[in-house]
């Protein structure tokens, strides 16, 4: 019963929050801490921290919540519940997008969207830079990784591992 409830709540929250990550936090907190009392405040914060230090989007914190509440089966139910809405909706949207991509209307809409996405990414890069580039060492790491990615064929895995090692040595 709890397993179904866990799955259902995460399915609905993820279905109705566009943007993922931080958008879903208030809703999750309300359900799991306030309404159901399945987690303490501290446990919820731990789940957020867990989602932040692990690779990939914050959403994987739900696996931790599921594990806390119902063990391994809870973790599986929480993970499937969290990503199933994405899988269903994006598959549906992509199917129809690819179908109508050749139409003049869709093509003209995306002709505007694509360069706008590039500009938006530049804005995100500046925002991230404001919080991560705090001294000459971090600036050097950022410039180095840009150059490696833009002008060489180095694997990004090495860039991430190298920057982590550089962080341990320099910072």
């Amino acid at each position, binding site marked *: 019963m709890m397993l179904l409830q866990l799955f259902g709540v995460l399915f609905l929250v993820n279905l109705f929050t566009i*943007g*993922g990550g931080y958008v879903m936090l208030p809703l999750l907190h309300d359900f799991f801490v306030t309404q159901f009392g399945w987690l303490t405040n501290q446990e919820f914060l731990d789940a957020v921290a867990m989602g932040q230090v692990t690779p990939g989007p914050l959403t994987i914190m739900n696996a931790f919540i599921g594990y806390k509440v119902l063990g391994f089966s809870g973790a599986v139910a929480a993970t499937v519940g969290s990503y199933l809405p994405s899988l269903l909706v994006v598959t549906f949207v992509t199917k129809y997008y690819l179908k109508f991509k050749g139409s003049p*209307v869709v093509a003209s809409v995306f002709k505007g969207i694509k360069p706008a996405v590039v500009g938006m990414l530049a804005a995100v890069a500046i925002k991230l830079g404001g919080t991560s580039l705090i001294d000459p060492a*971090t600036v050097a790491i950022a410039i180095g990784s840009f150059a490696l990615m833009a002008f060489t064929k180095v694997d990004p895995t090495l860039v991430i591992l190298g920057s982590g090692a550089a962080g341990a040595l320099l910072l």
Partner: protein
Amino acid sequence: MLRQADRGGALELVVKQIVVSITAIEARPMPTYKQIFMVFLKMGAFAFGGVYAMLAFFQRELVDKRKWLKQDEFAEGMAIGQMTPGPPIINTGIYVGYHLKGPKGALAATAGQVLPGFVLVLGLAYVYKEFEDVPLFSMVLKGVGAAVVGLLVSVVYKMGRQLVRGRAAAFFAIGGFILLHFLKANPIALIALAGATGYLLYGRSK
């Protein structure tokens, strides 16, 4: 009469679609489900820098190296990923998987992308009281955080060189930048606005 016109339009669309798919088949290597899963598994495992680092992985692994995706298809996938429910980077992965091999391809991409984080969360759940206090861990994260900025700029650079050509495209790129950076507009609303402007600018002249 309307019907007739509809049919004509539909036929034109189908022909266009066939031409597009034929050229796509010729230009594009066809990956297996396992290959899709493995590539996304690798990208999912090394996305310690968060979701923005992953964009650089997508570009290098899928566009540059394997040529499964073109630069502009990648941008389309990012826009769709941003506007659909759930984490945008996972959604972009689903778009890529579907694009390559239909619904099962989408599933393979999602499974690969999610699995590393899932395993790691379960592992950390056992030891989670202790690791917060390790200073080395936070230093490593700081280094990775700095690299992510560089990675993201490289995505902008490579994508921009192909997609931002000509005055009109520059107008959209600069507009997107200004509205997000200075006016803190909502990204979803921004994409919708860019799409609507694109339609007004290009859609009706044909």
